[in-house]
């Protein structure tokens, strides 16, 4: 058992965030489950070549996610992202990520950007951070996704798979277990 947060340097971390009891806010975790399933299950892919992909349910944790962010070399965040059309799949990279996260920021509200900022202050942040997400329809106290958002999950997972395959050394990424 390798506890999350005790990952090797160079780890690729897939971090699902959101709250599954708040309707579509749970889409990041639904994506995490579906992606994990598509990659053969388990909390991490045991990759050869010294590359390991870890799947982490970050829930709504704030600063407690810091060790993960510090230790990730490449970080893929799965989340609900705001937008005009519910069910739209969104991919963000580069400086789109901090811009997206910087809204509603304040010194007393610990969000994902605070965690990234803290990692930067400590001199340890991922070399790559990208986000794949789905635009939510409703974020209310209930379990399960709205139909439009649920329907977008397979496409978002395909995007995430493509991205992971690009990140991993040739020949290591194709570990799908279809059916």
């Amino acid at each position: 058992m390798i506890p999350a947060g005790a990952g090797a340097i160079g780890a690729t971390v897939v971090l699902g965030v959101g709250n599954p009891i708040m309707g579509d806010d749970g889409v990041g975790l639904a994506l995490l489950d579906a992606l994990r399933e598509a990659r053969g299950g388990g909390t991490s892919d045991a990759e050869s070549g010294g590359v390991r992909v870890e799947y982490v349910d970050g829930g709504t944790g704030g600063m407690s996610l810091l060790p993960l962010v510090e230790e990730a070399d490449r970080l893929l965040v799965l989340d609900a992202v705001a937008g005009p059309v519910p069910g739209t799949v969104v991919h963000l990279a580069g400086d789109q990520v901090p811009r997206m996260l910087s809204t509603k920021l304040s010194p007393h509200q610990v969000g994902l950007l605070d965690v990234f900022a803290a990692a930067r202050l400590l001199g340890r942040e991922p070399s790559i951070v990208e986000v794949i997400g789905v635009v939510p329809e409703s974020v209310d106290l209930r379990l399960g996704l709205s139909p439009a958002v649920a329907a977008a999950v397979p496409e978002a997972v395909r995007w995430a798979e493509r991205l992971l395959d690009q990140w991993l050394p040739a020949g290591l990424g194709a570990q799908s277990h279809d059916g």
Partner: protein
Amino acid sequence: MAQRVVIDPLTRIEGHLRIELETGNHKIDKAWSETTQFRGIETIVAGRDPRDAWAFVQRICGVCTSVHAVASIVAVENAIGSNPPTQARLIRDMVLASQNIQDHVIHFYHLHALDWVNVPSAATADPQKAVDFAKAIGSTWKGNTVARMTEVRDTVKGILDSGQLTIFTGGYWNHPDYRLPPEANLMAVAHYLDALQFQRSMIRIGTVFGGKNPHPNFLVGGMACTIDPSHSESINQVQIDQIRQWIAESAEFVNDCYLPDATAIMGVYKDYFDIGAAQPNYLAVGLAGATYAGDPAASRLTSAFTAVKPGAIYDGDLGTVHPFDPTRIAEWVSSAWYTYQDGDVGLTPDKGETTPHYTGPQPPYDWVADHPQYTWSKAPRYDGRVVQVGPVARVMLAYAQGHPATKALVDAATKKLGITVGQLNSTAGRTLARALECSVLADILARTTFPTFVKNLKGGDIDVFDPSKWEPSSWPASSSGFSLVEVPRGFLSHWVSVEKGKVARYQAVVPTTWLAGGRDAQGRQGPYEESLAGKGQHPLADPSQPLEPLRTIHSFDPCMSCAVHVMDPEGAELQVATS
């Protein structure tokens, strides 16, 4: 695909707090504490297997997942008659203690310190003076070196020069009431960064016992981790040694860094020991981490150490501890958007109803408090009284019962600062009490809880699960139970009824509800409201920079992001500060 998108963490923390204030003459006249998000956790778990409830209810709060998980499994164990073994209970105690220590440290440095510490000022400090200041306040932290202070000063400078304050964006850095000299600000920022590093050790304790973090695994009847000193797949000698090290590190940080910082910084803002008092009634079931399955008077299952007994203190009288009686807890909905079948009566949680009835304005709105109902938070009362829960309540209770470790720390701190024990009921006092409690807690974890666990282990006790009540066929046809747990923000209770193997009713009374709730049937304010408007003397120099009320609200460690709206009686000009 260049689309502007937002991740909104506001919807994810436990609810959403809004404070409305009316002010005049730089003082707060009236205050309303408003929880603007409906939470109906019971609707989520009704009809489910009670052994699964913890996995859902741990999502009540984004930050304190493990405390809700433990409260849930203990309530279910109480209902079905399960008996988790001693080692499992000790593991829970260690998970709760490490979460509590981490939570207090994070609260002080990362959620509250910036109310008192001016970050940009640190860039102008002399690193040598920062080391001298640390020494002068009794901080023996190993990070107090000129090299380290220089490094941090340069980091802050770099951030300022880049124009990207990141986590420090949005502070009221020009507010005239930042009083620390630059070297103290630099020391505090350095310790802010050290605290970020430190919390890793704490998190890891929960990770080892829970298998992962966030959301460690828990189990009705015990714990899901096997212990076998000679096996690599279970909790073994290597991990035990690691945990010993992490616990030692945590005690070192709390005693060498956090407690001296909190004492010194609150000392600079000494008038805040006379600001922000709430009702001097305190309720706690023991020290932080104290856990009971059912009524403490008859509880078979408790946390391993219950040195401080459950009780209540009324009207600030530390000479009398009233015995705790869970039947005296009741919740009113006078100011909340709920209806009860029998009208506005106080309902005990085992009979609790959660029927939403929103009568407030349609968002987006400017002002809510014109309505008699203005919040999603019920108003819990104990023995008919408004009570404070949390570190200050636990410290008062421990002090009143003569708990030696607590008493020694409180006496030393109050003497040093020249304040009375009663003045811990204040903005600065609540913040200091949290640090004092953290020191006691780290000490108990290092000297008592963990050594007891290891001693039992050496004696061959590796049992962490009671299988006898796992199968629903072994349960009564209908049963109910509850748990009482002291968690970072105060007294938490979960209440469950089980019918034919499924959850029939579920209620969670969380600490922040005790504190953030609104007015009751008699018009008595909740503690947040009282702390801001109780005496009509709470300062608010500049309505556009409501730093003073933020200090007071943050001293309670609210588990909600909050928006403060300020209205002056002259007109409807609103200022908004999210925090």
